[in-house]
C-alpha cells in the first residue's frame, strides 16, 4: 500500500483510540470526532519486555513483508473454529487398559504436568497407593509405597494419553473410563467415573470403602453403563452441557443439572438392559452423586481442545492443569511442552473443622473445563458457586465478563441467560492473559494436604501468570521472533 493511499483516509476524518493521558481525548471529542478513551494501564503489570513480546506477537493480517501476524491470526482462527465446532458424544465405558492407548502394565496416570513420586503431593500419593491396592499390585499401603519406591510403577500425566482426571486424577488399567468422541474430528478423550464427594480416591483417600467403590465401578457400574450405551447409542454431551448451563450448572464445580439430564437420558435403556437390582443400584448412585457428570464434562472439553492442539503459531491455551505442586499449561502452537509455575491454595470455604492450613495447593485436570470456556468462565450461569468466596450473583457475572477479555470468542452454543444468552468466553489467548494480567479463574475443590483425608472444601483459584509468559516466549522463539529488545 502506498503511504498516501492509507494515510489519505486519516485526513478525511480522525477516529481515535486514546492511550494514556485522559485529557487528550477531550478536544477530539469536542471537534466531533469519535474517540475511545482507554482506561489504560501498563501491560504485563509494568514488565516492559513482556509487554513488547505481546506486541510483537500481535495479529497483523496486512503486513506485506512480514507474514507472522497473519500466521498467528490464522492459526488462532483455526484453533477457535475447532473448539467451537467440537461435538463431543459419549460412546462407551471401557476398562482403561483397553481404551487408553499406551496405558498398560504397571502404569498409572495422574493429573497435571509430569511429576515424579518424591515430589508428588499427599493426595496424589494417597491416590497412587489406593490405585495400587485396587489393582492388587500390593496388599497394604506400606507395600504399595515400597513398590513405587522400587521404581516398579510407571507414571505419566493423563494429558499425555488423551485422558483427564479430576483432583489426583489417578487412572489405573482396570478402572472403567468413559470413551468420548469428538464427532467433528473423530478424536477421542477418556476420563474415569466420578466417585462422588467425601472420602474418595481422587482426594487421596484409600481406605477400604474407597477401594470397594472402585471394585463396584469395575464390576458393575462400568459394564452396566457400557451395555446401556450400546442400546441407546451415543449421548450428545454438548447438548446436555448447553442445557445445564441454563439450569444453574457451570460444568465444573456444579454439575447437578447435567447429571440429572444424563440420568434421564439413559434411564430407559438402563432399565431394559440390565437386571432390576443393578439398575436400582446404578440409579441410586447417580442420584447420590451430583458430580457424576464432571468427568464427562472434562472428557468432552479435552476432546474439543485436543482438536485445537498442535497448530503452528497459535497462542490458544489447550490445557491448564495442576498436580498439587505445579500448575502447567500448554499452547496449541508450542507442541507437547508444559509451562509450569508453582500452584497456590484456592480461596474458598472449608468443611467444619478444616481451614486453609489443612489445604493442599490446587490440584487436578479439571481446569480443562475453564480452558474450554465453561467452569469458572461460565460463572454467570451458576451464581451459587461464587458463594464459596463470599460473592454475589453480580460477582458471578463479573467473573464471566472478565474472562471475555482474555478469550477470542463467545461460544454461541453455550448461551448464558444472565448475560442475555451471550455465549461463554472461549479460547484463552495467552497474549491477552500476559497483556492484561487477568488470570483465568478456575472453580475447584480443595483436598487435604495429607494422603487419605479427602476433600475439605471448595473454592475459586486463579491461574499463575508466569507460565503464560513463559509459553509466549517459547512460541516466539519457535516463530523466530525476537522475544524482547
Amino acid at each position, binding site marked *: 500500500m502506498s503511504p498516501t493511499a492509507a494515510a489519505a483516509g486519516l485526513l478525511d476524518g480522525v477516529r481515535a483510540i486514546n492511550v494514556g493521558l485522559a485529557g487528550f481525548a477531550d478536544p477530539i471529542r469536542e471537534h466531533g470526532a469519535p474517540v475511545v478513551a482507554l482506561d489504560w494501564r501498563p501491560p504485563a503489570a509494568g514488565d516492559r519486555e513482556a509487554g513488547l513480546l505481546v*506486541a510483537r506477537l500481535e495479529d497483523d493480517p496486512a503486513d506485506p513483508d*512480514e507474514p507472522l501476524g497473519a500466521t498467528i491470526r490464522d492459526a488462532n482462527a483455526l484453533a477457535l473454529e475447532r473448539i467451537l465446532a467440537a461435538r463431543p458424544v459419549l460412546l462407551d465405558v471401557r476398562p482403561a487398559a483397553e481404551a487408553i492407548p499406551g496405558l498398560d502394565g504397571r502404569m498409572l496416570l495422574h493429573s497435571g504436568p509430569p511429576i515424579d513420586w518424591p515430589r508428588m503431593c499427599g493426595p496424589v500419593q494417597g491416590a497412587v497407593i489406593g490405585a495400587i491396592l485396587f489393582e492388587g499390585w500390593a496388599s497394604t499401603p506400606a507395600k504399595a509405597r515400597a513398590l513405587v519406591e522400587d521404581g516398579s510403577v510407571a507414571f505419566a500425566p493423563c494429558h499425555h494419553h488423551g485422558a483427564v482426571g479430576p483432583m489426583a486424577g489417578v487412572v489405573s488399567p482396570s478402572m472403567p473410563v468413559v470413551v468420548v468422541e469428538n464427532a467433528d474430528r473423530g478424536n477421542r478423550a477418556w476420563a474415569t467415573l466420578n466417585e462422588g464427594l467425601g472420602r474418595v480416591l481422587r482426594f487421596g483417600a484409600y481406605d477400604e470403602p474407597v477401594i470397594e467403590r472402585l471394585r463396584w465401578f469395575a464390576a458393575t457400574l462400568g459394564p452396566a453403563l457400557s451395555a446401556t450405551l450400546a442400546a441407546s447409542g451415543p449421548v450428545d454431551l454438548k447438548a446436555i452441557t448447553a442445557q445445564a448451563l441454563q439450569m444453574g450448572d457451570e460444568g465444573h464445580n456444579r454439575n447437578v443439572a447435567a447429571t440429572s439430564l444424563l440420568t434421564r437420558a439413559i434411564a430407559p435403556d438402563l432399565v431394559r438392559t440390565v437386571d432390576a437390582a443393578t439398575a436400582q443400584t446404578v440409579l441410586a448412585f447417580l442420584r447420590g452423586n451430583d458430580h457424576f457428570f464432571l468427568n464427562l464434562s472434562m472428557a468432552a472439553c479435552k476432546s474439543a481442545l485436543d482438536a485445537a492442539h498442535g497448530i503452528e503459531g497459535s497462542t490458544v491455551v489447550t490445557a491448564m492443569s495442576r498436580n498439587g505442586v505445579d500448575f502447567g499449561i500448554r499452547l496449541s502452537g508450542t507442541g507437547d511442552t508444559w509451562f509450569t509455575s508453582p500452584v497456590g491454595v484456592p480461596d474458598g470455604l472449608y468443611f467444619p473443622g478444616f481451614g486453609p492450613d489443612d489445604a493442599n495447593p490446587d490440584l487436578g485436570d479439571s481446569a480443562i473445563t475453564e480452558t474450554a470456556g465453561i467452569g469458572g468462565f461460565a460463572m454467570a450461569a451458576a451464581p451459587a458457586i461464587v458463594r464459596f468466596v463470599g460473592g454475589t450473583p453480580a460477582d458471578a457475572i463479573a467473573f464471566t465478563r472478565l474472562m471475555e477479555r482474555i478469550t477470542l470468542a463467545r461460544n454461541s452454543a453455550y448461551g448464558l441467560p444472565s448475560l442475555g444468552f451471550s455465549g461463554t468466553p472461549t479460547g484463552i489467548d495467552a497474549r491477552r492473559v500476559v497483556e492484561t494480567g487477568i488470570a483465568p479463574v478456575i472453580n475447584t475443590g480443595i483436598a487435604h494436604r495429607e494422603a487419605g483425608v479427602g476433600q475439605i472444601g471448595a473454592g475459586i483459584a486463579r491461574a499463575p501468570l508466569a507460565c503464560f509468559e513463559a509459553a509466549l516466549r517459547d512460541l516466539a522463539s519457535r516463530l523466530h521472533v525476537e522475544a524482547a529488545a
Partner: protein
Amino acid sequence: MTETIRGAVYRNSYRDSVELMGIAAELERLPGIVRAGLVMATPANLAVLAGAGMGEAAADGAGPNDLVVAVAAADEDAATTALGRAGALLAAGAGGDAGASADKPAAQTIGEGVAELPDANLALVSTPGTYATAEAIKALKHGLHVFLFSDNVSVEDEIELKTLAGRKGLLVMGPDCGTAIVGGVPLGFANAVRRGPIGLAAASGTGLQQVSSLIDRFGSGVSHAIGTGGRDLDERVGGRTMLAAIELLLADPGTTVLVLISKPPSESVVRAILDAVRGASRPVVVNFLGGDPDIVRAAGAHPAATFEEAALIATALAAGGDPNPGPLSLDPALAATAEGAAARLAPGQSAVRGLFSGGSLAGEAKIILESLRGPAAHDVVLDLGDDEYTVGRPHPMIDPRLRNEQIVAAAGDPDVAVILLDVVLGYGSNPDPAAALAPAIREAQEVAAAAGRSIAFVASVCGTATDPQGLDRQEAALAGAGVILAPSNARAAMVAARIAEHGVAAQSLVAGASGALEP
C-alpha cells in the same frame, strides 16, 4: 516541629504520573500541608517517597498497580483534609461515573478499543515512554496511524516503528510529538486554528504551534499540521515521517501551500527532503531554523528564517500574493514602548533572560538574540520544558511553578534587564497561563524594586482567539501585569534585544538565514 505523615492506598488504580503530580501540587496548596506525593507504588517510586520522609504512608504490600497518596502535614486535621481532597480529585479524574454500574468495563487495551470503535484510524499514545513502543506496535498492527506523544523512546525503537509503519502505509507522528492538527481535529497540545489551504509538516512542536497560530492571526488557515517528532530528521531516522507527510500533503486536494518546519537537519536528510519538494506541484516554504537559505532556493522552495516569516510567506502564497514580505521590523508603537522600558533600566542592566516553555520558541529566540546582540551579550535562554527540568514534574506549559521560581530568581540578578517569556495556549496547556504568571511577575518587580531596579517583561502569546484560554483574554491580562506584548516570538526577541541595548541604535544586523531581521 514534628510532621504528621499520613497515607492512603488505592488498590489496582493505575493513573498517569502527570495527573498524580497535578493532584499532589493541589494538595500542597492546602493549609497545613508540608509535602504531598501521589505515586504508583513501584519500588522506585516507594524509594522516592521514603526519601521524602513519607515512606510510612505506603501500606505494606502496595504494588505497582496500587496508587499511594502520601502527605506530610502540620497536624492530623490537615492530613485528613488533604487525603479527603485527594480522594475527591481522584474520583473526579476517573470520569465521575466510576461508581455507576457500567454494564461493560471501559476498554483497557488497544485491541479492546478497536473492538469498540472498529473503524478507528488513529491511536494517540501518551503512556510513559518505557511502554510506548509496545502500544505503538499494537496500534500499527491494528492498522492505526500513531500520534506518539510519549518521550523516552529509543532511536532504535523509533526506527522499528517507522519501518513497520512504512511497510503498512501508516504514519508515526513522534515519538515526542507534542502537537498535530488532522482535518481540523487538534491532537495533543494543539491550537484551535482556522481551517484553510496551508499544510504543515513539523519536527518541532511549538514551532508548529507558532506557525499555525500566526497563519490564523494573518487571516488564513491550516488544512493539516503533521508533527513528526523532534528526532525524525536525525540521520538515523532519515526523516521518514517528514517525507511521508510531504507526499501526503502534496496529494491532498485541500492543501495548496506546504510549510516544513525543523531545527536544521543533517545534510543527507536535508538533501532527501529538498529532493522530495523539488518540482513539487505546490509552493513549499522551508523553515529549517538557522539553516542555509540558498540550498532551499536551489530546490525551488521558499526559505523562511523565523516562524513568523514562514507564516507570512505561506499566507501570501495561499492568497496568491507576493511571497517576499521583506525584513521583519518592529512597528513604531512597539519600538516606542521598548525605548520607554529601556529608559527605566538602571546602569548595568544589560542581559536578556529568556525563560521558555516551548523548546523551539527558545531556540528561535536564542538565534535572534545572538544575531542582534552578538556573542558577547550575557543573555541566557532556558528551555524549561527540556528533560533536565521536567524529571518528576509536569511540563511548564501545564504547571507554572518552575518558571515562576526562575522569574523571581532572575529578578535578583542585577545584570538582568529583560525577562523574555513565551505563553503557549491551546488544548492541553494551562487553563489560564496569564493568571498563573501574574503573581511571579509581581514578586519579581518587588524584588527588583527593593534593589532599586526595574525589570522589563516581554512576552508573546502563541495562540488563537478560539483557543480555550482566549488569545485576547490572555494578552489583556499580561498587559495588565505590565508585560510588553509582541505579536510573535521572533518580534518579542527583537523587542527584548532593543531594550537590553538601552535604546542605543544597534549595529547592523546579521539577518538570520534570509536577511529578514531589522533592528
